[in-house]
């Protein structure tokens, strides 16, 4: 679960990290109230979306006058921001953050993520912060410092002091800087995060270090430990079908093609999408009904797949282990009836109770074609959806 900048800054403030407060605005009518709270300019007006690259896309503006704030707020609210992180369709801005602007002399970059190779969290930091960090990672990776973190004890003070100096920060601010770095790691560990990022971290004109931006994402597996933040999820930012699927314990990812897939197990679901592509088709989604694949989950999965109007054929691929093929066959029959399925349906069942499952399907009124292997199923689904791409 990703958070917005204004939410992340609330958490930063709780931990005593230096951030500039501001006001969240959802309607233009709220701008005057924000200006009343922070009457002294200049100000920043910042789009709140779950994607980076906002500044370059025109979603972050510096304003000298109150009139300017009103104008920029009106420009940004309701605009569709397109940045390298939003995808070509862009993201609609429904919220903005109005905050006093600060004057700074230096921009840096700091983030904490999990390093899979070293199997521990790592700090990524650079003295060359600002908007070009992605470019830096590609063209000048040596400018990014890495500090591996002891997952049991956190960032050691000596590591924090060394990193402060390696970033070119002044030694008279070493206590402030190293505490800030340690606090970022503490938040990462305390809240079971998968990402915390400050870009830019700045040195103010008075020499103090300040978090100008804040980005934060929870590890979904850790969220049950932090129920107080569950309501911070912004449904505007998530794919409606993916949310609906998650509520039913399904894992669903929307893809660009026209063959709907219903599979048990994440690896097999990925492989099924690959098989479709191998035979010239395009999968409309990745859908894992889970290893146990209950009848109810199968029915819900069918509804979600059919709510995507691009879908021209459906491929069901189940390898029954714990999940029994007869129960799943019944789930398919019931769900197809309930939703009035009229699209070509290809079913491939294998594993536990497969004979019983086949018998149930053949005795039902369901129109489907049965495939006895994964390749055969993929080929049949591609044909059902109108054939291979030419």
């Amino acid at each position, binding site marked *: 679960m990703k958070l917005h900048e204004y939410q992340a800054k609330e958490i930063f403030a709780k931990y005593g990290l230096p951030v500039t407060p501001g006001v969240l605005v959802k309607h233009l009518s709220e701008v005057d109230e924000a200006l009343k709270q922070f009457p002294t300019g200049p100000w920043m007006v910042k789009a709140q979306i779950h994607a980076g690259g906002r500044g370059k896309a025109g979603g972050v503006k510096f304003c000298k006058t109150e009139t300017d704030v009103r104008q920029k707020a009106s420009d940004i609210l309701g605009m569709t921001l397109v940045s390298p992180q939003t995808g070509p369709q862009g993201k609609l801005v429904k919220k903005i953050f109005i905050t006093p602007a600060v004057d700074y002399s230096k921009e840096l970059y700091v983030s904490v993520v999990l390093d899979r190779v070293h199997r*521990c969290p790592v700090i990524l930091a650079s003295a060359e912060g600002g908007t070009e960090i992605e470019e830096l990672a590609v063209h000048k990776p040596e400018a990014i410092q890495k500090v591996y973190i002891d997952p049991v004890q956190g960032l050691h003070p000596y590591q924090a002091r060394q990193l402060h100096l390696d970033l070119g920060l002044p030694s008279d601010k070493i206590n402030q800087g190293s505490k800030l770095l340690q606090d970022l790691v503490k938040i990462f560990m305390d809240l079971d995060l998968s990402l915390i990022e400050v870009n830019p971290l700045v040195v103010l004109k008075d020499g103090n270090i300040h978090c100008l931006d804040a980005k934060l994402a929870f590890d979904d597996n850790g969220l*049950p430990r932090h129920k107080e933040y569950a309501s911070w999820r912004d449904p505007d930012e998530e794919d409606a079908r993916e949310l609906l699927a998650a509520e039913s314990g399904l894992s669903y*990812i929307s893809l660009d093609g026209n063959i709907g897939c219903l599979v048990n197990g994440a690896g097999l679901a*990925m492989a099924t999408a*690959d098989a479709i592509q191998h*035979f010239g088709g395009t999968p409309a989604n*990745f859908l894992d009904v889970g290893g146990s694949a209950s009848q109810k989950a199968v029915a819900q999965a069918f509804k979600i797949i059919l709510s995507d109007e691009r879908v021209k054929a459906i491929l069901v691929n189940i*390898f029954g282990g714990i999940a029994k093929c007869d129960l799943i066959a019944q789930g398919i029959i019931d769900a197809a009836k309930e939703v009035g399925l009229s699209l070509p349906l290809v079913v491939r069942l294998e594993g536990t109770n497969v004979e019983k499952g086949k018998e149930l399907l053949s005795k039902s009124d369901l129109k489907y074609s049965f495939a006895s292997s994964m390749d055969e199923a993929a080929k049949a689904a591609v044909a059902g959806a109108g054939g291979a791409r030419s």
Partner: protein
Amino acid sequence: MSIYLGKNAKVICQGITGSAGLFHSKACRDYGTKMVGGVTPGKGGSEVEGFKVFDTVGDAVKKTGANTTMIFVPALFAGDAILEAAAAGIELIVCITEGIPANDMAKVNLILKQYPKSRLIGPNCPGIITPGVAKVGIMPGYIHKPGKIGIVSRSGTLTYEAVWQVTQLGLGQSTCIGIGGDPIVGTTHLDALEAYNADKDTQAVIMIGEIGGTAEEEAALYVKKHMKKPVAAFIAGMTAPPGKRMGHAGAIVSGGKGTAKEKIAALEAAGIVVAQSPGEIGNALVEALKGKKGKSKPKTKKKK
């Protein structure tokens, strides 16, 4: 005639009084695994379906001589269950539990270094089976057949798919391991390949990978330098868009790293036969056994 799991395994189940733990403990016992009891804190001294229940792993080890455990403890407590098993001297820890926070596993991974005799398989995995000898996990036993092919995979049902293709070819398996779909797992592809390489009864290996991370690339490097046996492979996730987590917490392409294309290229460069479609995993194995290297020859021509 196997790796990690042999006929001397004495197995307990942590979380045996939960519905999944009990169901699979029975299934493992039915398969022939020597199940010697289970652990649920607070229920020590009781008995469930013929299994003795203990309060702690230490107690279970003392009274049953258990050396292997299968963990079904809920996700937020599973990390602690792994450490409890290691501290009690369990040699093979198989953690089935899905959804353990990544930071918990980072801690567990660091602390486990204090217990070099303990091997962790998983979490978020189907477990391990040495066909005809023992199974410690949730895989359906009957699709396996004793034989000489080692299978190591990050996923569950896709592993069954590979096992089934091998069984249908009339070949069997030495040991099959699901190493799990999380970013941090105990046993890696590389560990398993080293063990298969040293196992005199494993003739060839199938490795099934997924997008995300660099574990397959590391394994490929090992194969190139040290592997004496033929290896076939498949990588799932060709169609995955970057930045989207494809079900498994570990299966995500981030920062342009860990794509299926990169992995397949690394595997082929190491002389591994890579199946172009999941339906051709068995076929790729046959070619690897014949001594062919590189791309598997598809049975059907790819239409593009």
